[in-house]
């Protein structure tokens, strides 16, 4: 007695691809078909063995660099071959020496700032983790920026730029108020495939600043300043996904 649905529909159900009606029908069928239940279990165990094996393979940094250079991406250009004249070599040595001195000085002078930034980033990651607790993610649940944006009115004394990026693969899921480093901030929640991204926003008097990135405990963060707002985005997605979100905000 082979159940036909155990071969086909169970996959659609498992993958969340059935419409609500068919999913409901299948669920009631599940109650009386042990074969489909077994098939569903088998799919779950297949997925978990795939997850355990971590078969996803990322591009090597070297290849990424090469491709970016090929595609005229700024800041990725491969070194142009220097002509081996004595002048050039001396110049290169001198430049390297200066860089070394400058680098040492920068590191020394930036050390303090860096540790403060790291602390901030770890607070942000904490806030992100807190938000993932059941029921903590959103205060206003909406994929509509025109619902989320007014929700912040009167709750905070600044207007965070609320934008939906569904088309670009980052659907807005909602927003909430959060407290980070003793200050009330706006948090926007975005989806990225199955991941959750938090974007924390608060006003700052600092000048616009290019993004800085880092990772803590496997969570990526990216921080930038634009038009009097400080942005901190954090998630367990790849760094490039966060970069893209940052660019979307900056466009």
């Amino acid at each position, binding site marked *: 007695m082979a159940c036909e649905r155990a*071969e086909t529909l169970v996959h659609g159900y498992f*993958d969340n691809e059935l419409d609500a009606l068919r999913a409901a029908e299948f669920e009631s069928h599940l109650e009386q078909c042990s074969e489909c239940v077994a098939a569903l279990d088998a*799919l779950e165990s297949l997925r978990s*063995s*795939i997850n355990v094996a971590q078969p996803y*393979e990322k*591009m090597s940094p070297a*290849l990424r660099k090469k*491709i970016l250079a090929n595609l005229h991406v700024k800041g990725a250009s491969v070194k142009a071959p220097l002509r081996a004249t004595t002048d050039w070599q001396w110049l290169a040595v001198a430049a390297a020496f200066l860089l070394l001195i400058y680098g040492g000085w920068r590191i020394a002078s930036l050390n303090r700032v860096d540790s403060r930034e790291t602390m901030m980033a770890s607070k942000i990651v904490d806030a992100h983790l807190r938000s993932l607790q059941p029921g903590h993610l959103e205060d206003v649940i909406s994929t509509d920026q025109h619902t989320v944006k007014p929700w912040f009115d009167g709750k905070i004394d600044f207007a965070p730029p609320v934008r939906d990026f569904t*088309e670009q693969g980052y659907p807005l899921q909602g927003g909430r108020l959060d407290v980070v480093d003793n200050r009330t901030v706006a948090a926007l929640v975005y989806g990225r495939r199955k991941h959750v991204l938090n974007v924390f926003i608060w006003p700052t008097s600092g000048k616009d600043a290019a993004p800085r990135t880092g990772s803590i405990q496997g969570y990526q963060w990216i921080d930038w300043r634009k038009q009097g707002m400080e942005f901190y985005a954090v998630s367990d997605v790849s760094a490039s996904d966060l970069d893209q979100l940052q660019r979307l905000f900056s466009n």
Partner: protein
Amino acid sequence: MSNPVQEKDLDVLDSQEQVRFETLVLPHLDAAFNLARWLLRSRADAEDAAQEALLRAYRFFHGFHGGDARAWLLQIVRNTCYTWLDKNRRVKDMTEFNEEVHGLPSPSPETLAIASNDRDRLSEALKSLPPRYREVIVLRELEGCSYKEIASITSIPIGTVMSTLSRARRQLQMALGNAAPKEATHGV
């Protein structure tokens, strides 16, 4: 100046298009590589294919009018890989292809210690599937694509994505040696 035509083998997009390309396409470099890696079953070949596919994507970017950039790129990657597989079939038939030479990726030492067995097992099982099954598994399970995206990447009609996945998963389950008991009946 001497031979401008030859020099200029890749047109530069205008700055607006360049930004659009970088924003929409470049975030999916890993996805491109991962698909190529599993379709070609080798990191070294995947590196070449990914490079070639990205150049093509760049060249044809003016033909991309919005929509799902990842699916668009993966479609190009897939086509590149299939062309590559066709081209190299004859050579491969003559010389046994050696997977070991190309090596496996290097996850962190901790996970490696625990998962090396699971990892190898899955890797071997996945490699044993025909490419048409392998790709739907990679797209669905590794890349998290929806059926609609899988259909647009692989040109499988949307109505048959589910049954293709069903066959692919069954074969993978069997290759892993943990097929569900019902698999034995293999009903029609």
